[in-house]
């Protein structure tokens, strides 16, 4: 089963890379951009076929390694 996870920075955490991307977009003529936040995306291929078991295992992975919960949130966005 393949599970997709996105990791995003928490609201209060400074994201200088997102800010630079925003400024660059503005310089390229995309003037309507209010804000850009950069994140990470993972595709995890897991042996478990049971969806809820697989998701809870990936959730453990997020808590223990993939995300640093001081600054980041994780979200399982797709399981197939």
């Amino acid at each position, binding site marked *: 089963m393949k599970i997709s996870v996105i990791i995003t920075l928490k609201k209060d955490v*400074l994201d*200088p890379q997102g800010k630079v991307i925003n400024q660059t977009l503005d310089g390229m003529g995309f003037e309507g951009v209010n804000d850009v936040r950069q994140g990470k995306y993972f595709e995890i291929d897991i042996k478990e076929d049971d969806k809820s078991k697989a998701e809870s295992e990936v959730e453990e992975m997020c808590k223990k*390694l*993939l995300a*640093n919960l*001081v*600054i980041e949130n994780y979200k399982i966005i797709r399981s197939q």
Partner: protein
Amino acid sequence: MNSSVITFPGSNCDRDMDVALKKFGFKNKMVWHEDIELPKSDLVVLPGGFSYGDYLRCGSVASKSKIMKSVTNFAKGGGKVMGVCNGFQILVESGLLPGVLLRNKYLEFICKNIFVKVIDKNSPYFKNIKKDTLELHIAHNEGNYFCTKEQIKEINDNNQVALVYSDKNGSVDDANNPNGSMKNIAGILNKEKNVLGMMPHPERMIDPTLSGEDGSIFFNNLINNLK
């Protein structure tokens, strides 16, 4: 005094740390990250560098390596553990120290001499240190210290701030904050004061001909405190 320096794949300040520790009287052993047990140590040092190429987040992969279980047990039992630069990043990722080190505020790799004000004068690392400010060297891309509101309160309540970026005279303000660190934090201790993490490199300031001597002051003081 016995010390151990852990080498991870991508560590590059491990040899400098070995030279520094030996210069000031430690019997130092180099320990590979795949080792299970630590040699008998009075001090364990996690050196600077780019462990695992800074993949995922700086220090995150190294914090899960085999030797870190022993380092964590050693620290939990009151053993002295010091992390410098990438070593500091590994300590926060392992949960031995609170907070996290973010990318520098202006997205630049900073490599220069800076001054830090010594805030902590009670831990084994800085007790009896004669100078109020030290000139040390920083070289990092992710040194911007950050933690939650609850964590910073706890850090302040327990006097866990060890070093803050300052000018030569110990004045602490935004102009002397090289990387955007919260409250100018350059180094912190755990609650029990046996674990220290700091971004500046004392091992790069142990020779007046090459750089400076304030690292010598730190190491001399440290070994005397541990005796």
